[in-house]
């Protein structure tokens, strides 16, 4: 299998906006997430139990934000070896239903060099089908090359 090309510091000028990416919250994705994390909250998998706590149906695990937030700027490329995630923020505006397709767009907020290290801050914003924001993820990483 061919390795994905690297996304380098040179590819990340401040202000760059990446193409919007579709991210579908399928029941299979949620099942895989539950298996990996051990987070078996029935709100993710059981419509009746989700409704019993005031939701309109099953919701996506919020921890998926770390995944769509990252995929929105990588888009088939990979972080060069030696990259280090140093900080992260997440904000949630509304629950997302299982079965939804999120439209996620990433942008480069800032990049700088300090003590010979290159830092990049990226922000990914997810919207539901009606165009409303449902989540924002911001990461700062040391970008090795």
């Amino acid at each position, binding site marked *: 299998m061919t390795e994905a090309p690297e996304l380098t510091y040179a590819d990340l000028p401040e202000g760059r906006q990446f193409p919007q990416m579709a991210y579908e919250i399928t029941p299979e994705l949620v099942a*895989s997430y539950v298996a*990996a994390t051990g*987070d078996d909250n029935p709100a993710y998998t059981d419509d009746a139990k989700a409704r019993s706590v005031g939701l309109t149906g099953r919701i996506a*695990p919020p921890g998926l934000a770390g995944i769509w937030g990252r995929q929105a700027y990588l888009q088939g490329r990979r972080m060069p070896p030696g990259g280090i995630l140093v900080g*992260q*923020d*997440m904000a949630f505006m509304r629950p997302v239903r299982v079965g939804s397709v999120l439209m996620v767009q990433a942008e480069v907020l800032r990049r700088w060099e300090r003590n010979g290290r290159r830092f990049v801050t990226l922000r990914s914003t997810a919207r539901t089908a009606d165009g409303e924001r449902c989540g924002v993820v911001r990461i700062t990483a040391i970008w090795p090359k």
Partner: protein
Amino acid sequence: MAEVSVRAGERVPELHKLVTQEVISLWAGVSGDFNPLHTDAEFAAKTRFGGTIAHGHLALAWLCELLLRWRGASWLSGGELLGVRFVAPIRPGGEYRVTGVVSEVDEHRAVISLEVCGESGQCVSGEAIVPMRQTRSRKETE
């Protein structure tokens, strides 16, 4: 719908997570992040970490689980994780505690100090903002 009030110093019911290489590999599959530092023991042994480590986003997922279990889906309408720092690696074979303590609270929001700790100490730190809209004391809601 009124929420149960929270108080400064209150502890969030903690989580315990056992990390194995299988767990890390499962997360690689969900996230699509197959960096060999996480999945290839031979490769990882030659790095400064000396072995595979978990993805940072796995710990973020635990923090989300902690807050959603504690506050319910209301946390997803205005809740935030802020300043999450990855202080030390999370390694397979260890058990980790995911904890939160209410550090500040007012009528609008509560600030929660978060940690993920293993046997050798803190691995992840950060804060959460929990919206407290509609919060009333028990007396006011009766």
